[in-house]
């Protein structure tokens, strides 16, 4: 079924395009995501992240372009293919509006849809909702409901997991817990495609990120080197006897060695800062920094 050059790629996209009433939402995207990778899509509101992801999930039609997800064209994906993917949509009004079902009802109902699903209680535990298992979805807080959504997305033991802004509304502890969960899934070989507006989340989780603006990919790479971050000029700060000092340099290691020699002991207040992912990102999407 797989095999061929795309055999070890979870997702292969070439020249993907999609317009809404003549306005391009996705304007020629190319993407190859190997199996087992955690890949994050970054980009401003309306950049085309959801449109792209939902085409890959088989939910939306594309205008043109070649798409293979686990070796299958998602527009033609059948039950056997869907059993291998997990989906967490950006919008999930059903959890609020058909809120009569409890957390456990939801988990049981979704588990029944998959051939080799996880134990509903185990998944509820994983997302930290064990003590809310008998609460109705409508009565959960926004962040708790989002955690339920994530639980439903992984209940079918997907090989490939789509997460569209999964941590919106999570408190910091829930976010850490979610990061651990994603790291565990990744370790067990799950491929993960995630969109997020939290840059520290992308930096923490993703092997590679792509920045999308106006339906085009600006750059793809590991978050540590995106936008030339790793080699860009660094700011070195320390506390001199005359007060705080900061120097911009392309050779921070040399400056630090020099400082260490000068002080003859530890350098007070020493810090070396590269541009943060956020700074690089904002520059890339053309926002005033």
């Amino acid at each position, binding site marked *: *079924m797989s095999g061929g050059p795309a055999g070890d790629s979870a997702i292969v996209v070439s020249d993907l395009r999609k317009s809404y009433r003549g306005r391009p939402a996705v304007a020629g995207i190319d993407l190859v995501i190997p199996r087992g990778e955690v890949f994050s899509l970054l980009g401003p509101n309306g950049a085309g992240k959801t449109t792209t992801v939902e085409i890959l*999930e*088989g*939910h*939306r*039609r594309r205008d043109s372009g070649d798409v293979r997800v686990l070796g299958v064209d998602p527009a033609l994906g*059948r*039950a*056997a*293919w*869907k*059993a291998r*993917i997990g*989906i967490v*949509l950006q*919008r*999930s*009004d*059903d959890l*609020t*509006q*058909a809120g*009569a*079902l409890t957390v456990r*009802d939801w988990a*049981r*109902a*979704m588990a*029944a*849809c*998959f*051939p080799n699903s996880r134990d509903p209680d185990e998944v509820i535990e994983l997302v930290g909702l064990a003590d809310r298992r008998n609460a109705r979805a409508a009565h959960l807080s926004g962040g708790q409901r989002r955690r339920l959504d994530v639980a*439903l997305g992984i209940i*079918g033991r997907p090989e490939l997991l789509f997460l569209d802004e999964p941590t919106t509304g999570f408190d910091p502890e829930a976010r850490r817990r979610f990061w651990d969960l994603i790291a565990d899934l990744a370790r067990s070989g799950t491929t993960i495609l995630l969109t997020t507006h939290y840059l520290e989340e992308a930096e923490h989780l993703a092997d590679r990120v792509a920045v999308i603006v106006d339906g085009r990919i600006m750059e793809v790479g590991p978050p540590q080197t995106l936008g030339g971050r790793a080699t860009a000029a660094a700011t070195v700060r320390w506390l001199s006897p005359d007060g705080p000092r900061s120097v911009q340099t392309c050779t921070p290691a040399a400056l630090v060695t020099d400082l260490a020699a000068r002080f003859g002991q530890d350098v007070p207040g020493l810090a070396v800062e590269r541009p943060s992912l956020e700074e690089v990102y904002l520059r890339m999407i053309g926002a005033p920094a």
Partner: protein
Amino acid sequence: MNAAATLVRAPALLAVTRARARVEFLVFIREWISVVFTFIFPVLLLIILGSIFHGQRLPGDVDLAQYFVAGMIGAGLFGVSFQNVAIAIPIERDIGTLKRLAGTPMPRSAYFLGKMLMVAFVALAQNVLLLGIGSAFFGLDLPDTVGRWITYLWVIVLGIASCTMLGIAASGFVRNGRTAPAIMSPIAIVLQFISGVYFVFATLPNWMQTVAAIFPLKWIAQGMRSVFLPDGYQAQEPAGSWELDRVALVLAAWCVLAFLVAVRTFRWRARTDD
């Protein structure tokens, strides 16, 4: 992907259908609005109109209240199947329930079977209530022969199947969930008026009888009359008989037709979500 692998990977239809039926049922009973509108309303109507009609005699030794109870059982069935389903599906499409399911390997038929089972369950409960009230207060005679019970059962089964299927087909023509009640409820009310639920069918204008005969409700009500009214009343029907063969034929035809339409028009995602 060959057929055998597909079979292994798709969850067993029976298990998913059971899970879907459970969800449908929980949602139905926990949303009190649906309970009031499709379940309690016919019972209230039965009590109000039954009390008004009680004592008015029809030819063939039948009380108008008896006639009305038989019709109301049919109308209730139409409500819990057609009206209920045709309103619920567009809402489920809007809020993403259907999209969530479409993203799973669930056999699509499990969703529809789940709806049918929920309808059957609710219809059963409603029938027990209507029969109980009808026989206790409005002179309804429960069927006294096995033959009549069998007719009762097959009219209910065919009625549920055809009207649920019709509701599923109709949901494909509704743009969004907000307008669904405003479209479906009048259809159901008009059909009740022209199908011989509130008025004696034989007394309706000919053209109205002709229009009503196209739709399932007229035939369900007629089938119910054959179960609950004395055989002597047959002569008062427009055709001079219960026409049970035609009842079966028309309802079966609606099952097939609505299925064919539904297959073409059913959408799992909102129009704005394409």
